[in-house]
């Protein structure tokens, strides 16, 4: 991976090499030639080189190999999440939200659903920490069976109280009280992002917290640096840098959220550090139903300083 990745635009390789039917969630075959043509058209030669190395069967990318690469990449991403204390970061923001929901008399249990959880690091970390309370159910959903099997395998080894399901997060039998995600938002553009946020508007959902790369002039370079020194898998290096490049601006995220999910009051948390113009790696899009708004702000304590204007 070179610094040239910083000048690239989407899609990421991990978006292009897998495909799922949005209704049946069945995996669809992906033709290697189509993926290569797509990246050649974008003049993304690094992506072409990486995809060229992937084996095919009758012109279709070998799903087993693709899954293996994705699992390895997620494992490497988890290392970065651990270094940047992401589990604790999520927990620290969820606690005031959950306390606000409890004070507002939300129905038990409180279900936290991690959208596109991959190998489930955040859900497993939250389960291992036990920091959110016994009235909380933790669940990770994703379309990729292999990633979820890995998440479940890891959770079983450590005897963690959480579950994983191949499902559409918005069509669960037991709906989510709080939706969370990490590094998902930038995969959705324009109408796709708007549609994703619209889906939060269901009676049972009381709040959402979506973490993603914070878009700043330094972010692509910083991301390149960290992916260069911490990652080994070429796909993870490429996509990691591209993620920072494709990150949505805070203002844009808020505009789309307020228009797509008007039932919630929303804000961006953690754009700046200690009220100073120090950019952060991640920021988060936070939304709560107005009913819980005041309690949420009160429970945030000193952290409220890192919360943008909520409306």
């Amino acid at each position, binding site marked *: 991976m070179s610094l040239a990745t910083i000048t690239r635009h989407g899609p990421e390789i991990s978006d292009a090499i897998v495909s799922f039917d949005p209704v049946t969630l069945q995996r669809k075959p992906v033709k290697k030639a189509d993926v290569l043509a797509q990246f050649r058209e974008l003049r993304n030669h690094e992506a072409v080189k990486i995809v060229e190395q992937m084996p095919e069967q009758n012109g279709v990318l070998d799903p087993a190999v693709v899954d293996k690469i994705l699992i390895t990449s997620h494992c*490497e991403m988890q290392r970065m999440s651990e270094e940047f*204390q992401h589990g604790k970061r999520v927990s620290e923001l969820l606690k005031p939200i959950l306390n606000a929901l409890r004070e507002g008399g939300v129905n038990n249990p409180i279900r936290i659903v991690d959208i596109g959880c991959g190998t489930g690091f955040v859900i497993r*970390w939250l389960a291992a920490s036990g920091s959110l309370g016994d009235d909380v159910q933790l669940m990770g959903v994703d379309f990729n069976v292999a990633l979820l099997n890995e998440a479940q395998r890891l959770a079983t*080894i450590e005897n963690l109280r959480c579950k994983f399901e191949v499902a559409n997060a918005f069509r669960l039998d037991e709906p989510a009280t709080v939706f969370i995600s990490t590094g998902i938002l930038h995969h959705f553009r324009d109408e796709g992002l708007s549609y994703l946020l619209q889906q939060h508007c269901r009676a049972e959902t009381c709040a959402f917290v979506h973490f993603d790369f914070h878009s700043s002039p330094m972010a692509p370079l910083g991301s390149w*640096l960290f992916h260069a*020194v911490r990652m080994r898998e070429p796909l993870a290096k490429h996509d990691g840098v591209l993620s920072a490049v494709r990150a949505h601006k805070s203002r844009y995220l808020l505009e789309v959220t307020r228009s797509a999910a008007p039932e919630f009051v929303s804000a961006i948390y953690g754009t700046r550090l*200690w009220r100073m113009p120090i950019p952060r790696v991640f920021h988060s899009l936070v939304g709560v139903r107005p009913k819980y708004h005041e309690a949420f702000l009160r429970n945030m304590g000193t952290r409220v300083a890192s919360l943008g204007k909520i409306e």
Partner: protein
Amino acid sequence: MIPVFLWVLATIDSAFIGYREAGGRNALIDKRAYYRHALIRGAVVGQVAVLIVGATTAIILASSNDSVALFSKLESVGARMLTVYVPYAVILLITFLIRSVPSVDIRSITSTVIFGPFTLIRPIVVLAGAVWGVLAAPGAITIALTTLIVCLMLGLSGILSWLRSRRLIS
């Protein structure tokens, strides 16, 4: 004392090489034992590297006509190397102390400002220390020994990865 200081630094450095090499390969949440083993493994493999350098130095000294003068030369090279490596190590150790503060933001910033960039520049620091050291007493022996040290310092991670690829470590 200079060889002792170099040995201490080599041991700490190789322990962290072991840690970095193990990073991103285990997706469990509680990895304390895993990383403890990785640190020890790195330090142990580092001792093999130290032994190679030590044995080579001993052979060179034994076959020298003036071993006292040569030892003094090598010490001056080592002392100059320390002037580069010690500040690098001290900054990292101070950063570890700062990271012990239980704050997500402070811990993250230690990574973005120090740990990440310092990992990136480590090969440059290794080379800079070696060149700076050799300049104290340029000669075929000091260049050869320093080159051996640089190769071992920069190659240790590759050696560990090779051992892993052969399933000799997990």
